[in-house]
């Protein structure tokens, strides 16, 4: 047990926590945009799966990581358009549409994997990139500045999302559409347009989240690679109170507990690993129950919009 408090182990745990936060951050920040515009996209996990598959397939066949990332972006966009068409244009119940999208993505990625790849293979994904000077700082440099590019990207996304949401006209429009679509509509904001944009942005980020798993973190693809990670991402949006900084905090808490549990397994600490794996989920339910953050929920979340409905 004393092992866990030794400096190299602490560094290892924190390094893993940062690394593991990556797919969650992409997916959760993306889902935050969709939800701020009033669309609950429950299909994140399905989008991540096809994104992860597409990126892996392209990298396996071309060896070009950026092309792989682009593939994830493109399929993410297509999935986003599908979700937006069903839930925004056709005004379908969002929760159930999302489940449909999830089943579609899970099935499609498994199908394509079996047909085009067949067995579990690995690729050489994004290599670690030590940032000059900063990466040499003892402890902090080891924890923060020796990651691969997608990891840095995920953390840069947080302030960027905050800036878009709080400092730009676009952010104002998104929030207005999510809060009071009828009022936004009467002021000439295209509710449909903003929601399409946000759902697609969220889906593209979910695609990248999947790619970050398959060509940066694990460097492999298998059926149901995400194992429900996308659903956790949806929960983390609530957890983070629909704000980028809250999401960052929630994600780091979640990934830290995950990292701790992984390292406890490595060090052979006598807690059954499956029990430890449960901790983050129990923690999430507990936090959701304790924090009464319903007040900050976008008022029009999960409500389809139709002109003239009032």
């Amino acid at each position: 047990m004393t092992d866990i408090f030794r400096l190299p182990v602490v560094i290892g745990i924190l390094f893993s926590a940062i690394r593991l936060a990556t797919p969650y951050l992409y997916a959760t920040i993306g889902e935050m945009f969709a939800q701020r515009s009033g669309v609950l996209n429950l299909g994140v996990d399905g989008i991540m799966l096809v994104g992860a598959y597409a990126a892996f397939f392209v990298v396996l066949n071309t060896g070009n990581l950026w092309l792989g990332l682009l593939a994830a972006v493109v399929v993410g966009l297509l999935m986003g358009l599908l979700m937006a068409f069903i839930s925004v244009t056709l005004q379908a119940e969002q929760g159930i549409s999302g489940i449909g999208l999830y089943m579609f993505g899970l099935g499609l990625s498994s199908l394509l994997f079996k047909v085009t790849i067949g067995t579990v293979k690995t690729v050489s994904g994004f290599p670690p990139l030590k940032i000059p000077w900063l990466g040499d700082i003892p402890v902090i440099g080891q924890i923060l500045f020796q990651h691969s590019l997608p990891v840095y990207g995920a953390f840069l996304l947080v302030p960027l999302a905050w800036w878009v949401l709080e400092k730009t006209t676009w952010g104002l429009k998104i929030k207005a559409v999510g809060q009071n679509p009828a009022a936004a509509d009467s002021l000439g904001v295209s509710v449909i347009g903003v929601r399409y944009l946000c759902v697609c942005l969220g889906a593209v980020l979910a695609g990248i989240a999947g790619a970050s798993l398959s060509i940066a973190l694990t460097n492999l693809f298998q059926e149901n690679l995400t194992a429900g990670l996308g659903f956790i991402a949806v929960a983390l949006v609530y957890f983070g109170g629909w704000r980028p900084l809250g999401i960052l905090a929630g994600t780091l808490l979640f990934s830290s507990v995950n990292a701790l549990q992984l390292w406890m397994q490595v060090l052979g600490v006598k807690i059954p690993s499956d029990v430890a794996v449960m901790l983050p989920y129990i923690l999430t339910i507990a936090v959701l129950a304790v924090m009464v953050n319903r007040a900050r929920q976008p008022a029009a979340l999960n409500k389809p919009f139709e002109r003239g409905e009032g």
Partner: protein
Amino acid sequence: MAFLAKVRNNPIFISALIPLGAMVVALLIGAVMLLFLRAHPLQAYAALIGGALGDVSGLTQSAVKATPLLLVGLGIVIAFRASVINIGGEGQIIAGALLGTWFALTFRTWPGWLLIPATLLAGFFAGMVWGFIPGILKARLSVNEILSTVMMNAIALQLMNYLLRGPMIDPAGIKAGTYLAQSERLPEQVWLPRLVPQTLLHSGAILAIVLAVVVYIFLWRTTIGYRLRAVGLNPDAARYAGIRVPFYQALSLTLAGGFAGLAGVVEVIGVQHRLLQGITSGYGFSGIVAALFGGLHPIGAIPAAYLFGALLVGADKMQRAVQVPSALVDTLLGLIVLFVVGSQLLSRRQAARRAVETTESDKTA
């Protein structure tokens, strides 16, 4: 929750037409995908339909797959009728399967006539607990049930993995050195009796159909069921009428969990005769499809569950006949859900147009 209201208020023929139309479109898209996979669509679909419905083996296997779909679907009907979205089917199935397995192994000396119903009740109870937790969190603390049920799924899965690798692992697996993550085989007297000899069809199928009727009576012929539906139709009106909305929301989730738990334990004592990983086979999600397809009606869920049971069986047969992965059918299931929910707007517009036409013809008359 407007969508759920739309499904509920549809005339019978529309609520049957839309799903069938959705299925046709999905199968057409599937045909295009089959062409891309270099398989002959007609040949593949013939293998699918022939495999599922062509002989006694296919017909009974379809019923075996339909049983958990129907049980989960009944729970989904109850939850969705109260406008509560239950995504927690997977976890509730696991909870039911876990406690049922434990119960049957612990009381293995009991005679079958006592052990079978007691084991079923244990599974039902465990599922209810797994549904009650998100239910009470929603009722008391307004925790979104979509999120809490997703979390409960993850917790149940990890709990099962832990128990199957540790306390509940098959001693035979340890002795043989395989350490397979599965439980000991259940005593034979707890196995559900077979309905047709030489097939897998077990009496759980009858139980599911009987329960569909029970759920129908519960929802439409009892006060509690009436209130539950009232909460789903219009929570504000229900509240003004003095109905305790949170109570009925929690109740619907608890019952939904119970039915999914029952599906889990039936799968254990009817089909596998032990608990193993992957016991849910995704029924927690495909049960939602069956419920939606059946127009959120317990009786409608019976043919819908059989249809999807047949699709799943046919998918396996198709995989063997024309080497197309059965995941193709999973993909189509997702598309069917999207089309069914997506087509509600069209049917509502049509209904509105018909209403306008009727009032206009009334005026001229």
